[in-house]
């Protein structure tokens, strides 16, 4: 009893001073490590983040898409403003900031989406990265260099195959059809999860905007899907051709396929009921009523 007590006492006596003296040091070291890791990773990831989240609307030195060209953007306004704007674009616009209002007007009313949990440090890192890229003669974010050649009927046909999934995306992503529909493709149209793409060419301001979107789709649904399965430039060109063709035809959004789908459902149900009725043709359909009413007729 006594010895075990002594043993335990000795144990604590040995460990306690060790912890007491070293705890602040350990915490400090860990904090530094964590901070470095964080800062480091954001130093490297700012470019990746930009590619993932920004390039569908912005270029650096590639001209305007939906959002403005960001070459030398840091010189246009002070840094603090940009940090605030990046953290909550809508709040700045709502506050009646004149510059933000001008930006919104230029973007034809489109508000830059909020980036969730973007810390001031991350915003700074992004701005640093943009400033650095702006100094390069040619930034890696100069935008998708899509061919200017006139798009042919073959491109449209290929785009259609890609859209329908008859030709698989070489990056391994799912076919457009799984979530989107478009006028004049098939009788029943495509999926209804994403928006109708009949007039997407106009919405995304033509070939360049469309190509930028397709090279890194930024919507919460598409982004995680296509993050590791990028659409290849030749496929983008074909799809652009398809969307351009569709927009030129001036179609309205696809409503016929919805009607077709409904009619098919109704028709299928009717056919199913008829076949079930035929299958159980000899079932017992009630004895009394037919007996009584047959006799009624016989008498009358």
């Amino acid at each position, binding site marked *: 009893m006594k010895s075990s007590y002594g043993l335990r006492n000795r144990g604590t006596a040995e460990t306690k001073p060790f912890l007491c003296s070293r705890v602040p040091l350990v915490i400090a070291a860990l904090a530094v490590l964590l901070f470095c890791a964080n800062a480091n990773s954001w130093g490297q990831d700012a470019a990746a983040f930009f590619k993932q989240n920004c390039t569908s609307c912005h270029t650096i030195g590639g001209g305007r898409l939906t959002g403005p060209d960001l070459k030398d953007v840091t010189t246009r306004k002070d840094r603090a403003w940009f940090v605030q704007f990046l953290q909550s674009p809508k709040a700045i616009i709502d506050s009646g900031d004149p510059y933000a209002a001008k930006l919104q007007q230029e973007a034809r009313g489109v508000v830059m989406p909020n980036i969730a949990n973007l810390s001031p440090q991350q915003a700074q890192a992004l701005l640093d990265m943009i400033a650095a890229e702006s100094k390069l003669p040619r930034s890696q974010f100069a935008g998708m260099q899509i061919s200017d050649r006139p798009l042919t009927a073959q491109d449209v046909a290929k785009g259609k195959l890609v859209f329908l999934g008859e030709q698989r995306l070489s990056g391994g992503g799912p076919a457009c059809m799984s979530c989107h529909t478009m006028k004049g493709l098939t009788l029943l149209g495509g999926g209804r999860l994403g928006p109708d793409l009949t007039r997407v060419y106009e919405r995304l301001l033509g070939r360049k905007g469309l190509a930028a979107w397709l090279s890194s789709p930024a919507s919460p649904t598409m982004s995680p899907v296509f993050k590791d399965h990028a659409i290849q430039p030749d496929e983008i060109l074909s799809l652009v051709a398809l969307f351009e063709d569709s927009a030129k035809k001036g179609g309205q959004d696809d409503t016929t396929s919805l009607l077709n789908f409904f009619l098919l459902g109704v028709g299928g149900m009717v056919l199913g009921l008829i076949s079930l009725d035929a299958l159980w043709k000899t*079932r*017992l359909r009630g*004895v*009394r009523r037919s007996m*009584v009413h047959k*006799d009624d007729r016989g008498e009358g």
Partner: protein
Amino acid sequence: MNVRSQVSMVFHLDKCIGCHTCSIACKNIWTDRKGTEYMWWNNVETKPGTGFPTRWEDQERYKGGWEKKNGDLELKSQNKSSALFNIFHNPNQPTLDDYYEPWTYDYQNLFNAPEGADQPTAKPISMITGEYINVEAGPNWDDDLGGSPVYAQNDPNLESLTPEQREQLFATERLVFFYFPRICNHCLNPACVAACPSGALYKRGEDGIVLIDQKRCRGWRACVAACPYKKTYFNWSTGKSEKCILCYPRLETGQAPACFHSCVGRIRYLGVLLYDAARIEEVAKLPDDQLIEGQRSLILDPFDPEVIAGARANGIHDSVVESAQKSPVYQFVKVWKLALPPHLEYRTFPMLFYVPPMSPVMASKEGGVIDHVSGDLFHDIEQSRVPVAYLAKLLGAGQENKVRYALRKQKAVRWYRRALTVGDVTMEVSSRMLAEADCSSEEAEAIYRLTSLCTFEDRFVIPPMHREEAIQMMEDPLEHKASAGFGFVSGPQRGM
């Protein structure tokens, strides 16, 4: 020989007055619950008539019972593959309309109706939907030939008659009907048990009562389609099927089933029969004209030492064999051959037998004057108002001679008693009639006593049920000996 015991029944149709007391007794005890409103485990039909459910004897449509196919016995309603295919929709179900939509009346209206020029009425309300309904059918809608141009003339048994006979049956002063009370027949070869996909139906080993295990029943309703007598019913509230249980809780305590107990006309007899289970399949495959003799051959003589030894070997208690020896059913069915099974051609071997009814006196018509006083009080069987062919279709599997035998014997007993008590018939004539009817004067006396003077104990020879032995087959009665308390039938629920 595989000796089994079966609680069997005889209904003496000549005594039935059609009062429906049996139906009410049964209803009040067993089927006054939600979901059972339309069920009549016991019902009384008027014959000729379509019965309950409507035209239940029409197996072309209801597909009940067995049929012989390629020398084998098969259910008419299903085989293994069609049972599986139709498991979620059994195509041979009677509709609710074929039974009837149960109703009550809006009695509150009699008290609550606003003051008006007319007396308030209690309108019928469906007991299923709660809506007002227009009552179009009931369980005994054609009682006493009500609506006979529609109902009686659609009786499937009339198919056995010639057009003249059919016409005569409904002619003025020839019109005739009799009552036909029905409960579950607790068959030897029950189609309902064979059809059940869940194995929920079983024939109780000790007394042959056919039951549905309410825990196992999944409500597939194959039994409803398969039973040719339509005596299993689906409870729409519990989602399980139910049927007559021959009041086994009453039998186990030595009481006659409620419908037997309450019978005003004392038409019902109950007693044990011993039968040979080993030969059921062989007999069930006999051609129609040998079925009645076949079923009789299944019923064993309880006085035969060999049978008694066989019963003992099968664990049938001596007291049950003793009870079988006193069984009035054995007398009616096997010894006197008076009682016949209903529609044996369905091959389920019903163990409820009917004594065919004698018809009323025939009137004669001369020059527009109808004479009710018949010179021939005990007229010839062939001149009966109910044609023998009709009774044969109902009770004789089409065999007129079996029905004629039973009727002739009943008639001879009447002449015999007439000679004894009234004396307007000579004993010589009555003896000749008895001889013609294959009946001795002792037998005639016994028939007379069991028919007319029978006491409660004569009619209901209820065997000791020996539940203690039956329970031993399923579980060990000493299981809880020396342990505290009696344990739990199902485990108690504890904790959160």
